[in-house]
């Protein structure tokens, strides 16, 4: 299914972790709020109250997707905002009780960077190591807890390696010690079943554009009774916890996307898993290519690899010339020109991390697309390896890859 316009060439969008196309039904639901229903939800006259009602309905839809009460959902503008809000807001709210924060080494930039902000403000942060699959060990969490520990934040699944973390086990550790527990579920929410009561977390971040909802809408779940200091101050929107005129159409869209995600989840998972497994099987037939993250316990729509002797951006570009769109954690693709800390944390050497490539799938993708991709990808790897100064020296075996 061609969701991307162009020159008539086949287009395979394999970068759903970057962002999703909007579900057409979601857009339809949003449209009135770009037109006649433009009222401000704070206004007490009818058009304002209709906007208010629409937001509250969306809140119910989002809450229902994660089995939470509507009043626990705070809408934000993105996953990064939810993460910054969560980590800073929790730490500042509890600063009288301690100054120690625990995160993992496979967190998203928005958590890592917020952690660094907290360090500059006098907090102490532990960055927990992970194993070769990217798993955080709940025992290691337990061992790193001190009397000063107030907050733990562990990602639900990294969009770079796809591994799903044992959040439930870690939340039990946190709960036993009265430590506030947050999980960054931006990559998982709407893609795998999430039940906050079962997970046992106090806070959870999500972003609509990761489940066929609009950009500009995210949310933070905050369990009843958990205190958080606002990031965006002032105003009485979102129960006084997040100021700013609400982005009504985007919120309405997030609600609809949540509803659709909930009802269509098992079908979506099945569809993506089949294609993902086909990609993994096909790609691993190419010599000197390795899966990153865990084989079984990973995002259903996510396949990630490191390819020896060649560099990720070059692969991305050659693939894109063939209409295949993917992502990489190589230094060259990052604007900071540094290898992905997530890849380094799972023990992949810097050189090999350059060969990172990530394929992520969605409802638009078909088996034919995967077949086409599996035909083109080995050729592209070959072409690039022919140009590689390392190829002849190391042919036939990986010398530098020591990961899983």
């Amino acid at each position, binding site marked *: 299914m061609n969701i991307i316009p162009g020159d008539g060439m086949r287009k395979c969008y394999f970068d759903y972790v970057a962002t999703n196309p909007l579900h057409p039904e979601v857009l339809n639901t949003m449209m009135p709020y770009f037109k006649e229903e433009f009222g401000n939800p704070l206004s007490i006259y009818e058009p304002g109250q209709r906007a208010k009602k629409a937001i509250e309905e969306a809140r119910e839809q989002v809450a229902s997707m994660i089995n939470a009460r509507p009043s626990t959902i705070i809408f934000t503008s993105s996953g990064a905002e939810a993460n910054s809000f969560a980590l800073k807001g929790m730490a500042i709210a509890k600063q009288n009780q301690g100054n120690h924060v625990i995160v993992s080494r496979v967190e998203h930039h928005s958590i890592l960077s917020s952690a660094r902000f907290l360090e500059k403000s006098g907090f102490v942060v532990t960055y927990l190591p992970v194993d070769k699959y990217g798993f955080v060990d709940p025992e290691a969490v337990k061992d790193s807890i001190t009397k000063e520990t107030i907050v733990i934040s562990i990602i639900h699944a990294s969009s770079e390696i796809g591994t799903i973390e044992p959040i439930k086990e870690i939340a039990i550790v946190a709960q036993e010690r009265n430590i506030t527990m947050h999980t960054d579920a931006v990559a998982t929410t709407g893609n795998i079943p999430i039940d906050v009561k079962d997970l046992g977390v106090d806070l959870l971040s999500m972003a609509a554009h990761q489940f066929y909802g609009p950009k500009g809408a995210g949310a933070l779940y905050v369990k009843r009774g958990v205190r958080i200091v606002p990031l965006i101050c002032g105003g009485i929107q979102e129960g006084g916890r997040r100021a700013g005129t609400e982005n009504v159409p985007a919120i309405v869209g997030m609600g609809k996307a949540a509803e659709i995600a909930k009802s269509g989840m098992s079908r979506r998972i099945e569809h993506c898993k089949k294609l993902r497994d086909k990609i993994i099987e096909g790609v691993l037939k190419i010599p000197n290519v390795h899966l990153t993250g865990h084989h079984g316990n990973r995002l259903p729509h996510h396949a990630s690899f490191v390819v020896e*002797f*060649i*560099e*990720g*951006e*070059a692969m991305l*570009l*050659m693939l894109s*010339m063939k209409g295949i769109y993917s992502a990489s954690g*190589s*230094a*060259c*693709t990052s*604007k900071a*020109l540094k*290898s992905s800390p997530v890849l380094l944390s799972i023990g992949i050497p*810097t*050189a090999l991390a*350059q060969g990172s490539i990530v394929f992520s799938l969605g409802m638009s993708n078909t088996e034919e697309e995967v077949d086409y991709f599996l035909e083109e990808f080995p050729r592209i790897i070959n072409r690039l390896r*022919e*140009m*590689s*100064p*390392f*190829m002849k020296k190391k042919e036939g075996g990986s010398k530098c890859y020591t990961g899983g």
Partner: protein
Amino acid sequence: MYSEKVNDHFMNPRNVGEILGADGIGIEGNLACGDVMQISIQVENDKIVDAKFKTFGCGAAIAVSSMITEMVKGKTPADALKISKEDVVQELGGLPPQKMHCSNLGANALRKAVEDYRKKGKVYIA
């Protein structure tokens, strides 16, 4: 992201490979930063008659390698040394800011190849 010229040199790179028994070989870059470039040259009568490259790196690195090996052919080793990174970038129709270091790599690898050639003794002082 890249100019058409860059895309062309990336997708259809000229002079890929290694000259067997090259007169000069230069390697520049390091893996941690993401790019390694190797340029080999063949010199006859104080003219670079052939140049080839092997490059581990991004699209810009490959395009720079391809372009610089094209530019150097027919030049004297002394004139080859005068090829600046700016010259390469200009020939490529520009590079994104964060990719400018790739042009540096190319000029350096070429310089090292020429230096290697001179060290080997076939030098004609210009």
